[in-house]
C-alpha cells in the first residue's frame, strides 16, 4: 500500500515535550505507527510512559507547558497538525474523538446528562439550521444512551446521581455521538466491573465497526487488551518498545519489558505468581539518549536502540544489551 492511499491513522515520529523549570520532559519521544481504518490498536505500558500525552496529542489537545515538538499525525491523507484552530475544533467529535482518562470526572456537575450530550451536537450544528423539536432531541439522546446500555431516565440525571461506571458510559456515548473516524479511548472501562466492561467493550466495538472507525485504546488491563485489540503497542519511558499483532505479542513478546509485563499478570490459579517488575523507570526529565530499559537493571547502552520490523508487522526497539532479560 502506498502511503498516499492509506486510510486510517498514521503517526510519524511524534514528539511531545513538557517544558518545565527543571528541564524538558520528553513524554512522547519519537513515536511512529500506522493504524488502518477499522482496526483497533491498544496502547499499554508503564504508568507515566506517555500514553495519555500521546492520546491528547492525537486530539491536538496538548496544553502548556506541553507542546507537540515535531512529527506528523495523518488522518487518511491530511496531517491534522496542519489544520487551523477552527478546522481542528470541528474535526473533534466528528472526525476524531476522545474518551478521556478519568472521563467520569470530565462531566459538568451542574448539567443534566441530556444537556451534556446535546451540547456537542449543537456545537457542531449536527441538526443544521433546521429547527428540531424537543422530542427529536430527546430521541437522539435516548438512542445514544441505549447504545451504551443506559436507561432513558439517565437523561434527566446529574453526574453525582450516577455511579462511576455509569458516568464512564455517558462519556462513551458523547464520544461516539458524531460518528468519528478515529476514537481515542483512554482507559474507557477502568472504572467498570468485568461484566459491564464486557458489554461496554462489545458496544464500543459494535459502534466502531458500524462506523468503520479505528480505535486507539489506552488500557492497563492486559486481559481486556488481549480480547479487544487487533494490534498492541507497548510503551516505556516515552517510547514505543514493541508493536505487533495481538496474537504474536502475547504469544511471543520480543521486548524484555513486554515479557516481564505479561509475566506480572495476576491469575486466579496461583497466589504466589503476583510480582511486579523490580526497579523504577528512568526519570523522563532531561533523559539522555540510549536504551531506557537497560538502566532499570543497572545495565547501559548509550545508543538509542533502532526500531526494527522483526516479523510481519511486529516491531521492537532492539537493544542487544538487555534483550536476554525475562527470557
Amino acid at each position, binding site marked *: 500500500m502506498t502511503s498516499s492511499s492509506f486510510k486510517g491513522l498514521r503517526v510519524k515520529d511524534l514528539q511531545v515535550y513538557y517544558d518545565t523549570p527543571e528541564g524538558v520532559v520528553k513524554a512522547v519521544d519519537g513515536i511512529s505507527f500506522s493504524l488502518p481504518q477499522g482496526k483497533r490498536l491498544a496502547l499499554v505500558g508503564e504508568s507515566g510512559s506517555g500514553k495519555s500525552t500521546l492520546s491528547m496529542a492525537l486530539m491536538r489537545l496538548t496544553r502548556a507547558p506541553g507542546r507537540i515538538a515535531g512529527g506528523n499525525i495523518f488522518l487518511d491523507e491530511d496531517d491534522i497538525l496542519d489544520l487551523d484552530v477552527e478546522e481542528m475544533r470541528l474535526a473533534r467529535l466528528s472526525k476524531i474523538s476522545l474518551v478521556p482518562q478519568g472521563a467520569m*470526572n470530565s462531566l459538568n456537575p451542574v448539567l443534566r446528562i441530556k444537556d451534556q450530550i446535546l451540547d456537542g451536537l449543537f456545537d457542531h450544528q449536527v441538526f443544521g439550521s433546521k429547527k428540531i423539536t424537543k422530542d427529536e432531541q430527546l430521541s437522539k439522546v435516548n438512542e445514544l444512551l441505549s447504545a451504551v446500555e443506559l436507561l432513558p431516565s439517565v437523561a434527566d440525571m446529574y453526574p453525582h446521581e450516577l455511579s462511576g461506571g455509569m458516568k464512564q458510559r455517558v462519556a462513551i456515548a458523547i464520544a461516539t455521538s458524531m460518528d468519528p473516524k478515529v476514537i481515542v479511548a483512554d482507559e474507557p472501562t477502568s472504572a467498570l466491573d468485568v461484566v459491564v466492561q464486557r458489554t461496554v467493550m462489545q458496544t464500543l466495538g459494535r459502534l466502531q465497526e458500524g462506523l468503520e472507525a479505528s480505535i486507539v485504546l489506552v488500557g492497563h488491563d492486559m486481559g481486556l487488551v488481549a480480547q479487544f485489540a487487533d494490534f498492541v503497542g507497548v510503551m516505556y519511558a516515552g517510547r514505543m518498545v514493541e508493536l505487533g499483532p495481538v496474537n504474536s505479542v502475547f504469544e511471543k513478546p520480543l521486548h524484555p519489558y513486554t515479557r516481564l509485563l505479561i509475566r506480572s499478570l*495476576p491469575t486466579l490459579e496461583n497466589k504466589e505468581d503476583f510480582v511486579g517488575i523490580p526497579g523504577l523507570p528512568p*526519570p523522563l526529565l532531561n533523559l539522555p539518549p540510549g536504551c531506557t530499559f537497560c538502566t532499570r537493571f543497572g545495565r547501559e547502552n548509550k545508543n538509542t536502540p533502532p526500531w526494527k520490523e522483526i516479523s510481519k508487522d511486529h516491531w521492537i526497539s532492539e537493544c542487544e544489551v538487555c534483550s536476554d532479560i525475562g527470557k
Partner: protein
Amino acid sequence: MSSLLQAKNVTKSFGGGIFSKEEELIAVNDISLNLEVENPKIIAVAGESGSGKTTLARLLLGLINPNKGSVEYLGKNLKDMKGKEKRDFRREVQPIFQDPYGSYNPFYKVDHVLYSPIKNFKLASKGEEARKMVEKALELVGLVPSETLGRLPHQLSGGQRQRVMVARALLLQPRIILADEPVSAVDASLRATILDSVKKLNKDLGISVIYVTHDLTTAYQISDEIMILYKGVLKEAGPVEVVIKNPKHPYTQLLIDSIPQANPKLKWGKLDISETQELLDQPGLGWRDS
C-alpha cells in the same frame, strides 16, 4: 474477640422521600462486616458498578450516615463521635478514594497531600524526618521523589496521582486502610508492586485493609476474605479460596466468567449475560465457609 470496625446491618438509600418524585434506591441493603482487633485481615468488597461499594465505604468512614443499622469503631457509634475520638478515628482509618483527581486541590503542589497529614497528626518532629518519611512512602509505590514532589496534580499522570494517594495512606500507618479501587489506573506490574506493599502492611504491621474493587483477580491475590455485592445486596461472602474457586451464586459465577483472559485465543465470557440476568436476583447466600 473485640471489634475494631464493625458495620451492623447497615442500609443506605437515596431519594424516595415523601416529597420526592424519584423512586427510592437502596444502595446498600442490610450489610454487615467486622474487622477484629486481634486478627488483622484484608477483606475485599467486590461487585458490579453501582452495586454500592463506594457507598459502603463512605458509610464505614462515617462520611454518610446509614438509614438503618450502625457503624462502630472500637465499640463506639461513628455518629456519636466527637472531638478527640473523631480525630483519632480520622487518623487511624485512612481512605484511599476511588477518584484520584477529586482528592487533590488543583492549586496545591502534591507535596501538600503528603506533608499536611504529617503536620496535622504530628508524625515527625523535624523537617528532615518528615522528608525521609515522604520519600520512603513514595518509593514504596514506585515513584521517584525528585520527579514527583514540587509538581501540581495535573502535571502527573493518572497512575502517578493515584499512587501519591496510596503513598499518603502508607505514610500514616493507620490501623485500617480503606482503599476504594486504589490501583484501577495503574499498569499490571505496578498493580502487583503496590498491592504487594499493601499486603506487607497487613502482614508485617497488622494493618487491616478493606479493598474495594471490581478486579477479582487482584482481590483473590491479596485478600483473605471477599464479599460480593450486587445491587446493594450481599450475594456471597467467605474466604477467597472458597468463593473464587467454587462460586455458588450465579452473579459470582458471571463475574468470574467475565474476567478477560490475557490470551487472545480464549473467548471473553462463555456465559450469556442476557440469559443469566434473571438468575442474578436470586437471594444472597450469606457467609460460606466451604
